[in-house]
């Protein structure tokens, strides 16, 4: 399977401190990949390097064979890489609809266009409505992002990431802070997206991850400790003896 997105031997240091040592990852088209690891293992830093927030000290990131290492976040985003954030990063003073509209590639392309008002463009509103419905926020388009419930905000977070029409979507702990109902709703949402685009998820909730992911990478000390299907990972003896092994 040819990889859509590849990270090749990434290393990232902040001063003396090595956060990523040697990360090699491959995500195929339509794959749903999970990334797990203990706290402070470098998962989020890994996302940040993959999506251009930081430039890696060494190594290469490729999208569809094209080297995108060291490009700035907006350049990478424009190539079809989208992400959500662990700590929610919404436009709080915008309505849910406006949050989505702001991320539409159509708006981005007309970023320096001042000849017309956003509100006058019904195509934007229509696209936003479709996306809102897709993430389960139909009818809530007019609510300020800050006034949405927590679960809705999580959904909107994904909606904004989706609005950029990505080829690959990185989700950083999408279930954090959600109760079991919220997690189930999110699992359904992500499940519905599966296969349509490549999705990479950092997750602490193992049940969630193991039930959804095609492949999982375990990251610790800035390295990929293990990689494989959920079943393969569960075969580890220590895993079987731990909480993780008791999942099912």
């Amino acid at each position: 399977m040819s990889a859509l997105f590849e990270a090749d031997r990434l290393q990232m240091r902040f001063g003396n401190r090595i956060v990523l040592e040697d990360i090699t990852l491959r995500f195929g088209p339509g794959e749903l990949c999970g990334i797990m690891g203990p706290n402070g293992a470098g998962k989020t830093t890994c996302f940040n390097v993959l999506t251009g927030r930081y430039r890696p000290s060494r190594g290469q990131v490729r999208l569809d064979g094209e080297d995108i290492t060291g490009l700035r976040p907006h350049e990478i985003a424009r190539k079809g890489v989208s992400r959500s954030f662990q700590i929610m990063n919404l436009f709080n003073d915008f309505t849910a609809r406006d949050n989505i509209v702001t991320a539409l590639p159509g708006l981005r392309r007309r970023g320096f266009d001042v000849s017309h008002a956003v509100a006058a463009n019904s195509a934007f509103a229509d696209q936003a409505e479709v996306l809102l419905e897709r993430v389960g926020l139909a009818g809530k388009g007019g609510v300020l992002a800050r006034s949405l419930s927590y679960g809705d905000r999580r959904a909107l977070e994904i909606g904004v990431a989706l609005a950029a029409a990505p080829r690959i979507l990185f989700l950083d702990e999408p279930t954090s802070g959600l109760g079991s109902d919220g997690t189930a709703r999110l699992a359904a949402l992500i499940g519905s997206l599966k296969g349509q685009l490549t999705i990479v998820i950092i997750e602490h909730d193992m049940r969630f991850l193991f039930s959804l992911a095609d492949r999982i990478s375990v990251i610790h000390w800035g390295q990929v400790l293990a990689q494989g299907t959920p079943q393969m990972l569960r075969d580890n003896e220590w895993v079987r003896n731990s909480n993780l092994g008791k999942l099912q």
Partner: protein
Amino acid sequence: MDKDSRDSSRLVTPAMLGFIVLLCTLPLWIGKVGLYPYLGIEILIWALYALSFNLLLGYSGLPSFGHGAYFGIGAYAFGLFQHNIVPSLWLCLMAALGAGLVAGAMVAAFISHRRGIYYAFMTIAFGQVFWVVAIKAHSITGGEDGLLRIARLPADFGFANIDLADNTALFYFVLAIFALALIGLWRLVNSPYGRILQAIRQNETRAAFIGHNVWLYKFTVFSLSAGLSALAGGLFAMAQTSAFPDVMSLHYSGYVVMMTLIGGGLVSFWGPVIGAALFLLARDIIGAVTTGWMLWFGLLFMAVVLFKPEGVAGWWQGLRQRTAGMSGNATGFARLRALLGGRA
């Protein structure tokens, strides 16, 4: 479509139209309420300045605390162009706008990767540099004595040539430019460009990760704001028939921040206009009674920062919402917080 989005897609909103029509009648009654036409000119100019400043503070969340520099640069550019190159109104105004754009772009190139307090620090430092240069370069700017004998050039429309020496005529001319700027800015803030600026204010990181070139937006909006401030400065030079360095000082740069905040620039397009009018009227009216008017204005400003960062416009909005049975908003605090960039 609700009223807000209907308004935002309009080129001219009913409120704007009403406001401009009201202003058109101003020379007829301003004397009757104890004021004078020149004050009207000054309010319009400062409102234009505050509006362009609010493009940064309110819309993009960029705290520029040395903005007087560009206002001053515009004034000098207007005068110098008139004295040394061509005494044509249109070209002089273009020169003011251009000088502001260039100076703004120069500074923006240095600071557009920053945000929050450090952004503020750098804008202050650059503002001071321009101010010092304006005082020092007295062979060009006239230093403290100011650049004098700037003429109120006639407005040449080709078919007609209107003399602007009279305050009322100048008032209508400034009003025309103000109205154009008002319409332009309204369209700007509601266009995709303005939308993205607001997104950057609320969350710079997210804006970058959905593909917007944050640096470029910050750069362009700073330049644009500096350019428009300079245009206002050019009009000010025309109103005063001279240009002085004082408006470039830290104090005056602070005044425009005060106007914008007190008026409610953080939550409303109209905030800076309200603030500028309030500031200048208070100065004229209270200033006639006591020389310590700044004391009261300073206290008002402190109270606004502490209790009502949404300013007058926010207070008005809250009042309207309360009467409409909605809960008051607390977005001013959130917006002020968002000025630092995303640490909501």
